[in-house]
């Protein structure tokens, strides 16, 4: 790996100070995306700021009608959390479906969301449940957070500190795994929330997105058949060696229907 400087700050304030004004510095969370990408030459950094020594960034709390998950909470801990399993079982199951055991032992929710990989799982839960991303500067609604291909609303020196998920009336996540990487070829999160029905799709386009046609169908009739009857256009969806855009469009309705049936 190329040489870099490593900082191991012990507060959010000093971590963000070290990041400020440096194009080529990166926060390091679990490193499961960043370190692998750096070794493959897909990403580079002259300075890494390790967040793992900052106290208080990891942990899961029930807060009123929601669950607050600290940015440095590992996927394995979300999957195993009794509170998450009881209140939002779909979120625990989603975390438990990420990659493999070793990846889940290191990877963090903050890292996954900040990275905004178009095929990552957590973005579907954040958008599907209408979560709120808390940073050192502000609270960002899920609908305003994901901006495009590996792009988010985060400023350079903005650090995610936690994510708040409101408890839905119903919710489920179904993913069609790429069998090699286990990322979502397509993943669909469906939820009945206080703000209405939400359907979020990952893996199918450059970024996670909502499907208003399925949301409208499910708002009138929460059934697998209603989801399946919707035609999703292949326009703008990914075509690659794994699947064509038409195949992905079809999978969206199939997985939405399965998720509704499982909810």
């Amino acid at each position, binding site marked *: *790996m*190329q*040489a*870099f*400087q*490593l900082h*191991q700050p012990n507060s959010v304030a000093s971590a963000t100070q070290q990041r400020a004004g440096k194009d080529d510095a990166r926060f*390091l969370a679990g*490193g*499961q995306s960043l*370190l*692998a990408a750096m*070794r*493959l030459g897909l990403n580079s950094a002259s300075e*890494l700021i*390790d967040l*793992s020594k900052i106290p208080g960034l990891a942990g899961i709390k029930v807060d009123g009608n929601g669950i607050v998950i600290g940015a440095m909470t590992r996927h*394995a801990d979300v999957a195993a959390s009794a509170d998450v399993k009881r209140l939002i079982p779909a979120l625990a199951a989603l975390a438990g479906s990420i*990659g*493999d*055991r*070793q*990846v889940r*032992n*290191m990877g963090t929710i903050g890292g996954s969301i900040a990275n905004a990989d178009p095929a990552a799982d957590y973005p579907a839960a954040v958008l599907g449940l209408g979560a709120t991303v808390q940073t050192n500067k502000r609270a960002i609604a899920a609908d305003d957070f994901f901006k495009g291909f590996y792009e988010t609303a985060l400023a350079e020196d903005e650090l995610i500190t936690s994510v708040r998920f409101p408890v839905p009336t119903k919710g489920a996540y179904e993913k069609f795994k790429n069998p090699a990487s*286990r990322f979502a070829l397509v993943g669909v999160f469906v939820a009945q929330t206080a703000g209405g029905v939400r359907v979020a799709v990952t893996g199918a386009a450059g970024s996670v997105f909502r499907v208003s046609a399925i949301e409208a169908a499910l708002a009138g009739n929460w059934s697998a058949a209603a989801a399946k009857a919707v035609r999703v256009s292949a326009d703008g969806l990914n075509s690659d060696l794994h699947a064509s855009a038409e195949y992905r469009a079809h999978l969206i309705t199939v997985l939405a229907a399965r998720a509704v049936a499982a909810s």
Partner: protein
Amino acid sequence: MTIHISMKVNGKAVSADVAASTTLVEFIREHLRLTGTHVGCNTAQCGACTVHVDGRAVKSCNMLAAQASGAEVTTIEGLASANGDMHPMQAAFKEHHGLQCGFCTPGMVMSALELKGRFPNATDEQIREALDGNFCRCTGYQNIVKAVKAGLAA
């Protein structure tokens, strides 16, 4: 840039000044000369480099040594007893032909041992799920599952 790190590896306190970019597996193999931990892909795919950090199975090629500073690390060398007797999980791999070339075996054993802490009576399906991040190019996995099952019961 060099950075000072210290940790416990197989119960022994170690410390060193290393380049910040040193991965945990480089530190284990090249500085500590514990070469039982293998490097297959070096890109977080194959699991050959699996070790325990504070009791959790991780891919040591995808982690900086500095991220493990202050932690307790266990490698395959830390399992056998002082008189050289194999750990029951290692013995089960030998007994049930859970290896052919042996390249993946240290990682398989470390993943299997983490499973023992979580599901001492794991089903075949739970075993396969727990070994999802460990690739074997020789055995076809059948005997690995058998070995892990026996090792969990031992």
